[in-house]
Every structure is written in structure tokens, then in C-alpha cells.
């Protein structure tokens, strides 16, 4: 159904060419929104949508963009999309918008976005750019969700806000690990994922 090239464009960023654990981009927001699973999911989806749409738009107008101001044009496109998503979230998912707070606006500066626009959308057609945007956004989202899964489970004993660790554990002296609530722990978890990812892929090659 899909040619090998489109498959690589879409699925490459999920694993071999993951923007977070291989290219180490977009780390800052990965630290900030992964305390709980829900904002991480929303952030992942938001970034995916924004990268995909920005990729398509920039790809469509790529031949008309003056080279000297191309970065500015890319920024304007991304900023417009981010503002749109943030307005929509504030209107329809207020709690999540509050939790994401400034980080939603900071998607504008997410390195993945500018990286994909400059490296891919400026030189490829709209369809490939869409796939590339989706792939990279999802690759980012996967890492976010994995990190948030461990941080919420070990840090608050819950997943998506529902308590997972039974009360009897707490009664027996179990305590949630406050370190997981700190941004530093997200870096260490990302480090662990990179570690696992490298060891797995070494065997494949």
C-alpha cells in the first residue's frame, strides 16, 4: 500500500530516527509536561497536529517563500498554529490548558518543529511532508507518554489521574517518589530510554 520511501518517512521517526532519543530535540518540553500522563498525551497530540499542519503549509508555499526571510515565515506559520491550538484548548479543555500553561505557547520554539520545516518541508512535496510531520510528532509523543507513564505511576501512584497503587501499600509504608515529580528525573528517564534504544538497535545492525 505504501512505498518503502513513504514508510520510512512515516515510521522512521518512531524508532530509528526518533526526534527525541536519537536527535535529542524537543527535550525542554519533554521535561515540563510529563509529570502526569494526561498533559503529556495532549502535548503529544498537539505537537503532532502542529508539526503535520505546519509541514503541509510550508511545503505548499515553499516555492514562493523568499529565501532571506524563510525562517521568519516558518515561525509565523508555527506561531499562528500554536496560538490557534492554545485558544481552542482554552475554550474546550480548560484544565489541560492550565496544566500545560506556558509550555503550550513554547511549542513555537520546539526544535522539532523548526528542524522538520527547515530540513524536510522546504524541499519535499505536501504529502511527504504530512507523513514526515505525523511521524515526527508521534515519535515525540511516544517518548513523552513513556516518560509520563513512569513519572505519574512512581511519582503520584496513579495513571491518568486514577490511583493505581493500592491504599494497603501506603498503609504498609510505601511512599511515592517525589524525585519523579522533578524535571531532573525526566532527563534521567529520557537517558534510560536512549540507553535501552541504543542497546536494542546495536543488535539489529
Amino acid at each position: 500500500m505504501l512505498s518503502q520511501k513513504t514508510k520510512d518517512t512515516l515510521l522512521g521517526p518512531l524508532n530509528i530516527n526518533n526526534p527525541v532519543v536519537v536527535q535529542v530535540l524537543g527535550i525542554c518540553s519533554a521535561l515540563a509536561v510529563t509529570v502526569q500522563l494526561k498533559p503529556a498525551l495532549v502535548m503529544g497530540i498537539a505537537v503532532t497536529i502542529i508539526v503535520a499542519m505546519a509541514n503541509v503549509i510550508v511545503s505548499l508555499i515553499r516555492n514562493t517563500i523568499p529565501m532571506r526571510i524563510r525562517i521568519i515565515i516558518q515561525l509565523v506559520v508555527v506561531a499562528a498554529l500554536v496560538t490557534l491550538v492554545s485558544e481552542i484548548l482554552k475554550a474546550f479543555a480548560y484544565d489541560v490548558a492550565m496544566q500545560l500553561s506556558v509550555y503550550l505557547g513554547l511549542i513555537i520554539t520546539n526544535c522539532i518543529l523548526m528542524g522538520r520545516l527547515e530540513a524536510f518541508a522546504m524541499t519535499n512535496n505536501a504529502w511527504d511532508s504530512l507523513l514526515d510531520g505525523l511521524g515526527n510528532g508521534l515519535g515525540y509523543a511516544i517518548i513523552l507518554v513513556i516518560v509520563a507513564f513512569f513519572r505519574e505511576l512512581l511519582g503520584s501512584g496513579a495513571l491518568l489521574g486514577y490511583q493505581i497503587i493500592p491504599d494497603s501499600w501506603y498503609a504498609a509504608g510505601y511512599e511515592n517518589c517525589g524525585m519523579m515529580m522533578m524535571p531532573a528525573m525526566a532527563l534521567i528517564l529520557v537517558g534510560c530510554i536512549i540507553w535501552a534504544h541504543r542497546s536494542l538497535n546495536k543488535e539489529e545492525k
Partner: protein
Amino acid sequence: MKLNTNSNVYTIVYATIVVIIVAVLLALVSQVLSPRQAANVKLDQQKQMLVALNQELGADPAALYESLVRDTIDKENAKPGIFRFEVDGATKYVLRLHGAGLWGGIGGYIALDEDKNTIFGINFNHESETPGLGALIVEEPFRSQFIGKHIRNAENEIVSVVVLKKGNQAENGEDQVDAVSGATITSTGVSDMLKANLCDEYKEFLDEGMKELTNEGKEEDHVESED
């Protein structure tokens, strides 16, 4: 015709057009969505007040709020914010609180009985207190300690409620609650916030009654008077 996309004129015109398109688009969206967003902000505050009033939020907090609220003085999320509710036939006052914690601002709503003395319930929020320590002020065990405490002393002066380390005794005999252990600064912040807000900010209201509220233009069949 092949356009020279690198000429100065083209660059300027292009940039202008892009900016105009984006600006119009965003302005439009913002206009369409702003009522909904304002409603969300309001709903969030209403929910916090309902929690302070010990109400189950249920499926429709807004309707619940409307069914309970009687009267408000609210200046755009700033001080003062005074609300009068009727819960189970009894009048309750809710006051908005603002203060400082360890790392950032803290705030909340305090619900008082009709005597403007007994605390009916309280709710806190915070910007960035330490998770597991200072952040515990929003949790039920800390909040529920306040219920039934008095903000006035025997001489009917407003003295607020102090938050103290377990085992310590308040100096002037105010009502006291136990601090969150390990979160001394945040607990002191809560204590200071209550004192500053109740003893200064809302002193006039607490001593004078609902005169201010009735002046707002709402017709009221009964005027609260100091007993």
C-alpha cells in the same frame, strides 16, 4: 512569468500579506472563542468556591453554583472578591484569598458562616509549591482541619486562624490548625495569607456587614447587620 522571489519588493510584499492573513485569522478565532474561554475561567472559580463550601461538584457545577449563589462583589479575579451563598437554608460568605507561598503565589477561598466567625469550609490553590510537601495544602486532610474554627477571639476581634507546627500553642490564643509537616514556609504562608486577608483586606466587610454588596445595585430584601 517567473517571479524573482529574492527581490526586496517581493520579500516585503510577501511578508506583509502573510502577516495580514495570520492576523485576521487569529483575531477571528479569538473573537469566536473568547466567550467560551471567559466562561471556563469563571467555571473554574465557581468550582473552587463550591469546594470551599463542601459541595459535591457533580455533573453540572455551574448550575449548582447558580442555585446557591445570592450576591457577589467580584472585581475581575482581584481583591476583593466577596460572595454570598445560601447552602441548605443558611447564609454563607465566601471570600477570595491571595498570598505568597515558598516558591510562588498561593490563593484560595474561605467560606464563613452567617456569624462571620465560624469557618464553614476552605479551599486552597497554589502556583508552584513543592509536590508532596507544600502542595499538600490543597489536599483534603489539611483543608478539613479548618472547618469549625473561629476567626474571632472572645472579644469578637478578628484574629484569623494560625497554622502552627503540631504541638505548638498559638501565642494569643487564636484558633489553630496543624501545619503540613516538612512544609514550614508554605504553612506560614497560608497563615500569613489568612491573617492579611481577614484582618486587613476584608476587615471592613467582616465588621460592617453586606452594605457594600447591596450598594452594588442588586435589590436585597434583607440587609445584613452587625449583631
